[in-house]
């Protein structure tokens, strides 16, 4: 109970701090500009235009929320240590894992604010172009949020042992690799590889998050049906992966000398 409260308090402060960052404002402006820009780019007949609009907007939502998630989590914990704001907090009966979860919750809160802003812009565009809302949006956006949740957890774990620029770079790299996991694996394995390489590639392949799973953009763009069982499994997958990364981050942070 007190643990949840501690996480809430730390998360609230982190969220307020994140939403105040200049980087966040710049990225939000960038996103809104991009979404409106994509609307003016898509100058085709009604049918194709809606598709392009959806495609571009969802891509933009994904891009900006990933950057926000990675940037805020990657600077969160190292920033607290550099500015020494961590000491008064963990001198209270607050466990290290509670601190990590609080920082994470706060970052995800900031991402939620950003996503809400972008979703509102997107909704406005949809209503003004198509006249109605596509219901697919109600699961496409939450799954995008889940994807950024994995990215944020990944960035948080990296930031507990790497410097923040390195952690930022690695997170972006892993984000790209995670999205291209299957094609990459296929192209690597189609070449002749030594036995050791095969084992290494397969291990890495099974460790890498499968970010493409969370991308239901095409379902919305092309009005395709997604089986419910797959949605539930993917949601469970996202939660498990996030929890595993947060556990890793807590374990590394618990060993850290402050």
């Amino acid at each position, binding site marked *: 109970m007190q643990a949840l409260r501690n996480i809430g308090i730390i998360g609230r402060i982190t969220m307020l701090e994140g939403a105040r960052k200049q980087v966040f404002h*710049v990225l939000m402006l960038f996103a809104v500009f991009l979404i409106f820009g994509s609307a003016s780019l898509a100058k085709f007949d009604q049918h194709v235009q809606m598709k392009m609009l959806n495609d571009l907007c969802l891509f933009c939502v994904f891009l900006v929320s990933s*950057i926000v998630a990675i*940037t805020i989590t990657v600077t969160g914990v190292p920033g607290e240590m550099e500015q020494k704001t961590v000491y008064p907090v963990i001198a209270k009966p607050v466990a290290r894992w509670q601190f990590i979860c609080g920082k994470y919750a706060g970052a995800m809160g900031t991402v939620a604010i950003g996503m809400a802003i972008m979703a509102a812009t997107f909704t406005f565009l949809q209503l003004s172009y198509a006249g109605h809302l596509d219901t697919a949006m109600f699961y496409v956006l939450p799954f995008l949020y889940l994807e950024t949740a994995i990215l944020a957890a990944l960035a948080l774990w990296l930031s507990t042992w790497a410097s923040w620029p390195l952690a930022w770079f690695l997170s972006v790299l892993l984000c790209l690799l995670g999205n291209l996991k299957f094609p990459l694996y296929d192209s690597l394995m189609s070449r002749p590889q030594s036995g050791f390489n095969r084992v290494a590639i397969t291990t890495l392949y099974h460790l890498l998050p499968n970010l493409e799973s969370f991308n239901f953009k095409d379902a919305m763009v*092309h009005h395709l049906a997604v089986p419910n069982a*797959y949605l539930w*499994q*993917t949601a469970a997958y996202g939660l*498990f992966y996030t*929890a595993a990364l947060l*556990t890793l981050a807590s374990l590394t942070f618990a060993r850290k000398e402050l």
Partner: protein
Amino acid sequence: MKQTNQNRAPWILLPCVLLTLGGVTLLAPHPAAQAAPTQVAPAQTAAKPAAYDDGDGDELLEHWDSPRYGAEERIQIGGAAAGFLLLGVVVWGKRSRRTAAYAGLTLVDVSDPVKTEFLKSEQSVAEERKAA
């Protein structure tokens, strides 16, 4: 020092954003490129159902229809669950060992004069000094 760093952050980030943007647009599979490279996933293109072919060139099998994605998700969920289980066992073992150690420690502390030496308060040290 810190102040200037913070002010510079957007300007450091901007090229990063542009680079990422460039990288993602180059790397991400977009409609035109998706139709062309058949060597990437030949098995999948062969198995595509005709129902989704809506004529805009985006005919790749979607991941939710591919058993491979579902299987990989289940493998990773299983792996994570096994990891949690292992961690739980390790933590539980450590905790019970620690509890046992401290339970033993209290007993040792009281009975063992060498170990209780450091427990003496300054007051008692002062008394002893006066007595000496």
